């Protein structure tokens, strides 16, 4: 039976070093929830606190209404998939998968039945009697998944499960994991540093940095309306440009360079700060204007270009001296050579504006549930 996971004010210390100062989180029953962040941000630490392999220095961890802080790892009813799979090398595939069931003193007949079911589910049944050393990385991954799921855990924890696979297999396996997770319908916490993998697989993502959750939301929310500058730069690619936020009768405006000013209705009056700001413009949100365009725009010079088939990337220097990357759908005519003078405009619906001092977003429509948890935690 799957459960929801609720974490209130988690604290993790190693000696005097605080890894996670104060973290609260709610993970809904049945969802695939990803902890995403650069290495050392505390995501694996948090996962191992849930699993019971790391001590908890403060706060409360709940599976539904059962507090698990002091429950032994083996009694939390967790399925775990490790980065190196942790397949027992001296046991056959079948014995690996059956290991957890044997510890539960299940009758032999039933163990066999359950094991077969899950070996089939992960499509590894034909290798049941092989030893692990004779399996490929992807196959070992499937064994690890079957072994974690066969005990019908309340929660599935996955610690960078795809990082040891090659690029092609990674893409294949993440689809496998997502489908199996949906089939079984189990609450899953997934740790990765690969933002593309996180976007592809997750129902919701928590972006972490330095032990603090920066943004929790659906992949789309996080990509399009990041809560702060860190999230904007960590998820996908962003050009960070300096600019000004202005306000007149018609609403908020953003000034990029001396003669390029756009009106930005998406700025939230409650968060807006007039004056200097940081503008996060993704490469596809910078529009390269055709030659002969005389309207307002940012003047720039092309330094270099990379043709990647579907898209062409241009690396440019703005007249302000800032560097930027542009992604444009490849055109049939020739690629602009280095040194070309160009003009850029900006997709005003999409780009984001952040405060200079606290680097938080000024935009409307940010779906960030971090605050909501904190409020909920206070109520409890």
């Amino acid at each position: 039976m799957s459960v929801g996971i609720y974490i209130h004010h988690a604290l993790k210390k190693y000696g005097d070093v605080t890894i996670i100062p104060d973290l609260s989180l709610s993970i809904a029953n049945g969802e695939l929830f990803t902890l995403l962040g650069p290495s050392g941000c505390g995501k694996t630490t948090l996962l191992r606190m849930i699993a019971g392999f790391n001590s908890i220095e403060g706060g409360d961890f709940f599976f539904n209404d059962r507090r698990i802080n002091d429950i032994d790892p083996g009694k939390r009813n967790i399925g775990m998939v490790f980065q190196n799979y942790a397949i027992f090398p001296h046991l056959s595939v079948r014995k690996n998968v059956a290991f957890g069931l044997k510890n539960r003193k299940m009758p032999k007949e039933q163990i066999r039945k359950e094991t077969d079911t899950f070996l089939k589910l992960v499509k590894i049944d034909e290798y049941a009697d092989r030893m692990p050393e004779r399996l490929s990385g992807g196959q070992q991954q499937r064994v690890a998944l079957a072994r974690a799921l066969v005990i019908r855990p309340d929660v599935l924890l996955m610690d960078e499960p795809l990082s040891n696979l090659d690029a092609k297999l990674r893409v294949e396996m993440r689809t496998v994991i997502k489908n199996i997770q949906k089939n079984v319908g189990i609450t899953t916490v997934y740790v990765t540093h690969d933002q593309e993998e996180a976007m592809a697989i997750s129902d919701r993502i928590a972006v972490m940095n330095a032990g603090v959750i920066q943004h929790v939301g659906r992949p789309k929310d996080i990509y399009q309306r990041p809560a702060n500058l860190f999230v904007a730069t960590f998820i996908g690619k962003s050009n960070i440009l300096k600019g000004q936020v202005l306000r007149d009768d018609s609403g908020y405006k953003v000034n990029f360079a001396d003669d390029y000013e756009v009106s930005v209705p998406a700025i939230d009056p409650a968060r807006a700060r007039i004056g200097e700001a940081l503008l996060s413009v993704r490469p596809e949100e910078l529009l390269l204007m055709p030659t002969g365009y005389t309207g307002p725009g940012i003047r720039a010079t092309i330094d270099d270009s990379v043709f990647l088939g579907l898209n062409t990337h241009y690396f440019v220097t703005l007249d302000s001296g800032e560097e930027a990357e542009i992604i444009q759908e490849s055109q049939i005519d020739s690629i602009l050579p280095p040194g070309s003078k160009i003009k850029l405009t900006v997709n005003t619906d999409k780009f984001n504006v952040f405060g200079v001092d606290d680097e938080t977003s000024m935009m409307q429509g940010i779906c960030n549930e971090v605050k909501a948890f904190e409020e909920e935690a206070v109520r409890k």
Partner: protein
Amino acid sequence: MTRSRKRVDLWTWIGIALLCLFLLFFIYPCVRLMWEAFYTQEDGFTMKSFVKFFSKSYYYSTILNSFKVSAAVMVLCLLIGIPFSYFFTFYKLKGRRVLFVLSLLCTMSAPFIGAYSWIMLLGRSGVITKFVESTFGLKIGSIYGFNGILLVLSLKLFPLVMIYMNGAFQDIDNSLMEASANLGCTGVRRFIKVVMGLTVPTILAAALIVFMRAFADFGTPAIIGEGFKTFPVLIYDSFLSEVGADYNFASAVSVLAILLTGIVFLLQKFATSRFTFTINSLHPIEKKKPKGIAGFLMHAYCYILIAVAILPQIYIVVDSFRDYKGQVAQSTYSLSNYQNAVRKLLGRSITNTLVISTAALAVIIIIAVLIAYLVVRRSSALSHTVDTISMLPYIMPGAVIGISLIIAFSGRYFSLIGTMTIMVIALAIRRMPYTSRSATATMMQIPISTEEASISLGASKLKTFAVITIPQMSSGIISGAILSFVSIVTEMSSGIFLYNNRTITLTLSTYTNISLGSYGTASAFATITTLVTVACMVLYLLFTRGSERMSV
């Protein structure tokens, strides 16, 4: 708020239990040894024994002799062992399996058997000596003393260098060799600059183990040393002298010996610390086919070396079937030596050897596995203390361990003298550092996540250790255990102080028969010891499926 408590679990108690064992059976005897060196009944605290030692060159020359001969053995072993290993690893020699197995056999045999056999071959009335004299009218130089020890120990210990170097050479990435050729450095220059450079840490490690083994060896200098006395022989003489045992003096010499080996050990550690690097070996060396005259010379070198090294073993076997009249060998062959051996406790020697060695091995394995787990998984001050103590016997010659146990456990109320227990303890302590090291190395290879997976899947800690951890360690442990068994069977330097008629073993029987002049009988005992060794080697090779990597 929940605070994490430092939990006192089963492993803490195991750590404490191990510490107590070491304190009782190793540290306490060492302390008693030191006490004995500085304290006598008549004079109280005194430096008398040390003064006595340094006042006569007869005494202090023993340490110098030991040092000289060990250093010479070390250099010679490196000089002959490194090229041997190089040819072996870099070229497809014909019959390389045979070479490998025979060289293992040389190094695994009891050391003094070589000395005894070389005397029969090259000694004053040796077979070869007489043959050369009668045919060519030439005199062969004396085999006794420094030269003899050097010959015997070098031929016995150079395979250790080979074993160490094989591992290091196999770890060299082929692309480094190619890169060096690409940069214009090939041939001998490449061997010296690149190959040797990359293996310096291993060369140092091999040098240390050869030095320690040569330094601690008692049997060889006792048999072939004659006037050239080394310090284990001095300890033995002063301890078991007919004029009355001088425990204080023997202890003082022991303390000095430990000091010296300790200094050598630290120097080696210091030297090694300056050569730390790791090689990422993705492309192992591809063996070349040796060609032309160079190929012929390589084969000649390896085969002649092994033939000379194995010669004493073969001679002993032949000799064991030869009839003896008193000390004079006859030209007829029979089983009479074996019949004599049976009368001289052969049955008891075999039983004792197997019982004592098996018991010692069991103790060693259990303790080594527990230490490995403590050090790798339960890193704490306690674990590291136990680990460090378990390593200390590495620098202690067997003779020193032998007499420290006698001093400690010959009390009026609690005496272990003359029991099998004390022999088991001595052997366990002697061999502990090697097994503990390799068990720890094996343990480090096991990813902790398999244990976490097991616990997460509901297995208890104890069950995880038994079902997940130990099976993963087992292949490393078993291969190490077989080698340990061999070295326990052939070990003598501590046992010589501890045995009596009831606890005599095969090697000790061999040695007593040599010293009594019953040469044929001694050969029979030696042959049976060799048989046990060969049986273990076969087992080892079957188990490791002929892998050329091993730890000794």
